[in-house]
């Protein structure tokens, strides 16, 4: 490690840099396809599931061989297909999309594309072995693109009614969008509104809906009041970046992308104001109450877990959450120290400049002013690196802490559906007892009603049981997708971070080397 004498840094590998967004639509499906591959060395061992003629949705469920033996929610993929057939409006199967999907699916079996709703292509050929880099390259060549950028925060209005409007630009050649590019202006409550809608529709089915960035009354008040200092600038930039990441995560989720609300968000010029997202509103309070009742009911549900996978996963999620929180606090300390270093360097630069100007010896004086300049540049470097530490690493950890809450939410919803099933079974049992009682008491008129009720509840029980299994399957799939996306995300961010470190080191060398002749010229 370290301490080797000077060496010329080898050129930075190009292939790693072609990936644009970590949460781009394509990368998601790609990652579906390399279970069992070592992402880093690119050793390709295509796992068995690829040869599976089942639709691409299936490979995710057979990641580990052990999971094949799990029954809960994994009955047959027929069921998955059925579910999508009877899916609610939001998960509309866009046929042009599917058609489009089929072509590349045959040509390039890695089948990238944001949609998970594949009913058709059971004609998947087993994919040839590919290295990670090759698959990444394919991604780039693929026609499916959906790039989202959130830029240009602008303050609209004045005083306490002011808000920040962000420009949301979409670039796509997905057929489900009418145009290739869209630019709309959105405000923070619009993003929150989008989340509310998506969450309402999909969370209960076990989907992990990415949470938006947090509200910050203090931050926004500063902006509204018009305080133009560095902390409010940083706040706006932080929010802009996290809104961008939020949208990217939403569109990289195959099912969520299908939701017309998402499309509307990206396309429509004017959105109705999402009032229910206001912090201090009636709707806001209502939500708080709901959340409280949820928490209480969660505590009282004691689930008979028949599938140990879920229990284990939940534990993993818990420990990951703790881990991330620790990492976050450690990174924040690092960021603060770097900022401190930056300001100390600035102060030192000033005092050196003063020292240089009062120095009689001209060569020394010049050298000292040069030193002051170098230190000034270094100060900027430290400041930039602190920002990088923050925006790349700290925000990454913070994002995933929030995402893990969503993951836990999906587990909770699964529990709720289980509870509903159990409750239905209990009710059915009661109805049966009631029927028995009626039989005993010999009241034929009420008997028919009782029988009707029984059959009603019997179908409900079946329905709820299927629901539970469907939701379990979804949760499972979602968790696996989440983990893959997380690994990709971390990898990309790590690469970015290393690049910044490398860059700042190189700059440091440049600055110091420029200083040496001045230092030598003294005396």
């Amino acid at each position, binding site marked *: *490690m370290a301490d080797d004498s000077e060496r*010329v840094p080898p050129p930075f590998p190009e292939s790693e840099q072609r990936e644009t967004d970590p949460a781009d639509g394509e990368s998601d499906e790609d990652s579906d396809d390399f279970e069992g591959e070592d992402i880093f060395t690119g050793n390709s061992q295509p796992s068995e599931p690829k040869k599976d003629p089942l639709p691409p949705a299936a490979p995710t469920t057979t990641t580990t061989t052990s999971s094949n033996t799990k029954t809960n929610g994994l009955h047959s993929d027929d069921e998955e297909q059925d579910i999508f057939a009877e899916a609610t409006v939001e998960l509309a199967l866009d046929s042009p999309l599917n058609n489009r999907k089929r072509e590349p699916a045959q040509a390039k079996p890695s089948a990238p594309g944001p949609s998970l709703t594949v009913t058709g292509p059971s004609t998947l050929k087993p994919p040839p072995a590919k290295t990670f880099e090759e698959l990444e390259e394919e991604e780039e060549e693929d026609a499916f693109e959906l790039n989202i950028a959130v830029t240009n925060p602008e303050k609209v209005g004045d005083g306490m009614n002011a808000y920040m409007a962000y420009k949301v630009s979409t670039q796509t050649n997905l057929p489900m969008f009418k145009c290739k590019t869209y630019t709309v202006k959105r405000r923070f409550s619009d993003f929150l509104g989008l989340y509310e809608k998506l969450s309402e529709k999909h969370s209960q089915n076990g989907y992990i809906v990415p949470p938006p960035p947090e509200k910050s009354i203090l931050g926004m008040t500063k902006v509204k009041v018009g305080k133009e200092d560095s902390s409010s600038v940083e706040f706006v930039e932080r929010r802009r970046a996290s809104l961008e990441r939020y949208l990217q995560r939403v569109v990289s989720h195959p099912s969520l992308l299908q939701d017309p609300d998402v499309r509307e968000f990206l396309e429509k010029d004017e959105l109705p104001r999402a009032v229910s997202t206001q912090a201090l509103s009636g709707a806001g309070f209502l939500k708080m109450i709901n959340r409280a009742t949820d928490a209480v009911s969660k505590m009282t549900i004691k689930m008979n877990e028949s599938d140990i996978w879920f229990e284990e996963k939940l534990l993993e999620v818990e420990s990951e959450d703790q881990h991330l929180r620790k990492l976050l606090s450690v990174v924040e300390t690092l960021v603060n120290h770097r900022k401190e270093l930056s300001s100390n360097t600035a102060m030192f630069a000033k005092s050196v400049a*003063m020292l240089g100007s009062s120095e009689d010896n001209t060569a020394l004086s010049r050298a000292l002013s040069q030193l002051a300049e170098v230190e000034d540049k270094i100060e900027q470097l430290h400041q930039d690196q602190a920002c990088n530490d923050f925006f790349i690493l700290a925000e990454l950890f913070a994002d995933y802490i929030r995402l893990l809450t969503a993951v836990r939410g999906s587990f909770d919803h699964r529990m709720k559906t289980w509870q509903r099933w159990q409750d239905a079974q209990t009710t059915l049992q009661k109805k049966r007892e009631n029927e028995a009682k009626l039989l005993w008491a010999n009241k034929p008129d009420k008997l028919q009603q009782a029988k009707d009720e029984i059959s009603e509840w019997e179908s409900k029980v079946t329905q709820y049981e299927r629901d539970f299994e469907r939701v379990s399957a979804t949760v499972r799939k979602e968790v696996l997708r989440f983990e893959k996306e997380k690994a990709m995300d971390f990898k990309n961010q790590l690469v970015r971070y290393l690049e910044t470190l490398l860059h700042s080191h190189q700059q440091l060398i440049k600055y*110091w080397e420029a200083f040496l002749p001045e230092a*030598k010229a003294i005396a």
Partner: protein
Amino acid sequence: MMDAGIEDNSNHDFSGYDVRVTDAAQNGDTFVYVIKSQQISSDMEYRFEREFEDFEWLHHCLLTQEGVTGLHGIIFPPLPAKPGTSLSNSEAKTKKKIESLAMVDDWQMYCRALEEYLHLVTAHPVLVKNPAVHSFLKHREPPIKTKVKKGIFNKLTQAVEELRKEHHKDIDDFFQNERDSNLTLTAFTKAAAEKFLEIVLTEQKIAIACGHFSTALHLGIGQDDDPADYAFAKMCLKLSEVLDTVKKNFEKVAENDLNTLGFNLELHSRFQDAEKEMLFRRTCKLVDVETANKNLGQAKPHKKAAMEDIKKAADKEFDEISGMAKVEIQRYHRERVRAFQKALIELELAATCFCCSSTGWLSLNSHV
């Protein structure tokens, strides 16, 4: 390593010494410093221990040496401040400012400061002739000390009456300029030294934070049954490695900063004070001369002869001091510039060296 016995004082050899302060050890309540000295002209090497009080005694002897013309015109090399009784850095943390090198939790730095003091003393053409130096550097036993009244010369500038003298206009432009520039230079050097030492502290803090970050990354790594988990774990390990490098880099940078520019700035801010004291002594003498002249002018005839003698003595002393002072000042500035240059070059070389090695490592290892 031979040990010299007590030598006959008449056998002084005034050639230079090569002195090392190699170590600091705790001896009960106090600290002792292990010193190795070798006289250049002979092959004899001496090894002994000294406490801080021995240094103080030496300094006192230098300041009160008899029979040296223009003694007060000498810029005496400054002795480092007395170290705190404990090695902890907590003092520095509670006080916002770094007041002495001793607070920067680094005993090696302090030994080096003491060593530098001895170098400066033995390199000084006049001071090295002081027998106290000889006995300090050759005798096994520490010299017999009498209780030193806390540095009279050090406290000079604090007397209210003296403050008035400090601003006394000089008769000689050279000296007036020197006094003015000394004033500004002292303030700026102190400020720069302080700020720089704060940078060093922050660099050390960052190194520690990187270490924590690196350790924290190891925490979540356990299960690798999942390929995604395994991938994630690999990420964490990689980042952890990178952070270890960054940490080492910062540690080295901090150390280097301290060793080069930090040391230099701190030493010279003390040296500036020493120069200020010398100039002040001379100014006091100037005041004496002017007072003597005035008295002579006002003296009654029967006292005139006595006043004349006093005036002559004052004049003579003042000239001697001024003469020595001029030489000292020029020497001091030469040395200062040279030392600064050396420090800056060393700073630069080490900085680029560390950056290069970590850049090399980083670029090799960014193939994730």
